[in-house]
């Protein structure tokens, strides 16, 4: 019927409409979340998973309203805790396809601990982090991904916090799947989501998302980059090239860092998302618009490791094989007993 990822091998004929709810979508006009929602609703039927086996879990923030708009099972929980709650669900119900929707504040600030531990355990979750580099729902304070010196209502003289790089953090937390997509790039996002859905274990996807109210155009350089001047599209097994005419490229130096070079120069890096060592993916995560003149999107890392729920199920199975199915009366009478007559 279904494989362990909840996949039903495309036998269902659902459409995007089937994934819409009767709830009025209440994000601000122009919010990047609309594009992501539409992309996900269009993409979901492709998975062939019946709606009842899909669960969206979120924390708090603008992005966290997401589950209300997906006609699947869902939970809008508490700030930062979605990965923890989803861990309990995914661990007890390996038959489900569990998705976490989170934001930069939710995932990296208040929920940072839960995020890194879910990733290192390789719980079977798909984590979508909508990164708009600002707190939206609380009306415009700086977030853990806001740039140093960011002037907001809570930082009138500029923020003093060095920002997180979400992908570097995820790779450092032993994530087995790490990718980046852009809210308005429907095709690119579908490609990344497809790979994430197929990945068994934790899949972490940063989605660059625009907040038109409090941090408009934070990602304009890649979001509006129709000609691919700034987007570096990573494709497994292919040389990493970008630019209007593919004239720019990346290469790795002996110290492991990555620099931009001409596409015709020697040593152009060939992308290998399956490399066992996370250092290549990490080095790629350090490639930014500011430092390299381009922003990589696509799958950075995609390796296989046993998942938490599989290993737990294995232990339960082995315990039952060794000791037989637990018998309550036997348990109570274990140890030293004596009879009073």
């Amino acid at each position, binding site marked *: 019927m279904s494989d362990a990822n909840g996949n039903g091998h495309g036998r269902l004929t659902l459409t995007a409409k089937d994934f819409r709810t009767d709830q009025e979508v209440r994000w601000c006009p122009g919010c990047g979340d609309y594009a992501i929602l539409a992309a996900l609703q269009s993409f979901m039927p492709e998975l062939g998973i019946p709606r009842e086996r899909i669960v969206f879990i979120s924390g708090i923030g603008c992005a966290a309203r997401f589950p209300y708009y997906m006609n699947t099972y869902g939970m809008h929980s508490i700030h930062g805790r979605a990965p923890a709650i989803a861990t309990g669900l995914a661990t*007890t119900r390996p038959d489900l396809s569990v998705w976490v929707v989170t934001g930069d504040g939710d995932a990296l600030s208040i929920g940072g601990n839960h995020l890194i531990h879910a990733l290192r355990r390789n719980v079977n979750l798909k984590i979508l982090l909508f990164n708009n580099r600002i707190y939206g729902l609380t009306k415009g304070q700086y977030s853990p991904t806001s740039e140093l010196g960011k002037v907001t209502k809570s930082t009138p003289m500029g923020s003093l916090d060095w920002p997180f790089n979400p992908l570097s953090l995820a790779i450092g937390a032993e994530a087995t799947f790490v990718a980046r997509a852009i809210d308005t790039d429907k095709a690119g996002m579908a490609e990344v989501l497809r790979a994430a859905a197929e990945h068994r274990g934790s899949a972490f996807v940063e989605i660059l998302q625009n907040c038109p109210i409090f941090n408009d155009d934070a990602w304009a350089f890649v979001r509006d980059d129709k000609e691919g001047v700034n987007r570096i599209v990573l494709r497994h097994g292919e040389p990493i090239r970008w630019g209007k005419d593919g004239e720019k490229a990346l290469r790795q130096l002996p110290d492991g860092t990555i620099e931009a070079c001409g596409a015709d120069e020697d040593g152009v890096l060939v992308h290998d998302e399956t490399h066992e060592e996370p250092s290549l993916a990490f080095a790629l995560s350090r490639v930014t618009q500011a430092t390299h003149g381009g922003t990589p999107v696509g799958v950075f890392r995609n390796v296989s490791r046993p998942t938490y729920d599989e290993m737990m199920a294995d232990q*339960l199975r082995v315990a039952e094989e060794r000791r037989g199915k637990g018998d309550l009366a036997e348990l109570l009478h274990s*140890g030293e007993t004596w009879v009073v007559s």
Partner: protein
Amino acid sequence: MIVRFAGDSGDGMQLTGAQFTAETALLGNDISTLPDFPAEIRAPAGSLPGVSGFQLHFADHDILTPGDAPNVLVAMNPAALKTNLKDLPKGGTLIVNADAFNERNLQKAGYTSNPLEDGSLDEYQLHKVPLTTLTVGALKDVEGVTPREAERAKNMFALGLMSWLYGRPIEPTIEFLRAKFGAKRPELAEANVKALQAGYAFGETTETFAVTYEVKPAKMAPGTYRNITGNQALAYGLIAASKLSGLPLFLGAYPITPASSILEELASYKHFGVRTFQAEDEIAAAGAAVGASFGGALGVTTSAGPGIVLKAETVGLAVMLELPLVICDIQRAGPSTGMPTKPEQGDLLMVLHGRNGESPVPVVAARSPSDCFDAAIEAARIALKYRTPVYLLSDAYLANGSEPWLLPDVSELPDISTTFATEPNAGDAFLPYLRDEQTLARPWAPPGTPGLEHRIGGLEKSDRTGNVSYDPDNHDLMTRLRAQKVAGIAADIPELEVDDPDGEARVLVLGWGGTYGPIAAAVRRVRASGRKVAHAHLRHLNPFPRNTGEVLRRYERVLVPEMNLGQLLKLVRSEFLVDAVGYNRVRGLPLRASEVAQAIEALIDHE
């Protein structure tokens, strides 16, 4: 007879006490134990903070507490003597390891002269036994054991001596030692066995001990018994709840004293389908349990006060989601880190009120170590039936203390099975907040159920549909419905029973949870003095049993003894307008029956 073993944290006093308990239980005595140990794993050797103790009360009749003051104190070093002597009544038996009373140890314990020689112990029956020398001597022919290991077997020598003195069989301990060390270090097992036997023989041959004590089996209800600690019983209760409900058990926990042993215990029962998740923190532990509940499991999280405060947010979410969740709070002395290994009843008001908004949560409290089994089943029953988080309160004394447990007949345990929603409940639609008319519980439809896809969350829900709602009247209605649902549980729990043999008492003692033993023992003493007193003990603290107000108003005076500064007292005074008075001690120890008895007598005599 009350025996206390006291020594350094590294002296193996807990093991010694536990084995003496096991020997005693097999003889059919009624028993009650109180381990009392520091939070430090190994405080500096010989120091006062490093003293670890184990008290065992055993008798030929039904007993209720580990006892107030010991009859016999075994002190392995000067620090143990210093910290425990104040509890030994004059004339009590004192057995000391004379070898440990050297200048260095005396100094560490703050003695300026040797109490074994300066006459300060003249009022006790003092037995100076060179335990270390005798043990090392007895083991000199055992090969493969280091001198340090030989010396450390002195606790087994002491156990052997005590076993002889009280006519306990040492065979169970020999079996235990061989099972514990036998596979890896058979020579170490033999060394300990030899020390044990040498101690027993020493008692027999020396003339130091003029009398041996015989304590006959207690008259206990017929049936099969075993000895059990509170945390073990609680873990068994959760497994039973899983079996009785037919739902898989999921435990989310973060290590914390004194709750960790529940996690460890449950982790060893994977063949019961038990999933244990050692989370990154207390919040994740609770969150994962809620996630598991959403998926149709029996979600449980365990902790103590400092962890429970962190879970408050998640418990509030579970109140809003109306999903089952059992939160076990093994209370310890607070505030903050407080005294991690010591009991207190300081968390009652926190679990009742420590959440934002109007957030009602049922509360169940266990009264004795073995009662943790039944209390756990009851907490799960309420959680599953009413789709609500339920707090289960225990404490450090119940958690580590032990008593004989008359094993229940599994077939007579309550049926706590519940049903999942499988069909739409409003025409073609599924309304996740359409309530059961009787219980007011909402339907539980775990993901995977076709056609019942729905979204829940922490935002206020619209009545019936569960959609997000900011409607003022809806919030008022939902707030009242949640309160009414929990209040309605009163109809589904037993009435408060009163122990008032001839119905003539004018004073009622009202307790809750882990103070049951000391209060019941105190009530017996008061009655033995010819006075009349009634005792009622609460298992359910939210809601209270439906007859609670009526019971309280039946008596002229109500005394509420608690290991806090008057939390239940505050509740009964405000809820029932009863002029109750408190008896409160927060010493990190169980209440003393003798002191509770004095407080009761004072109240009776004052009338």
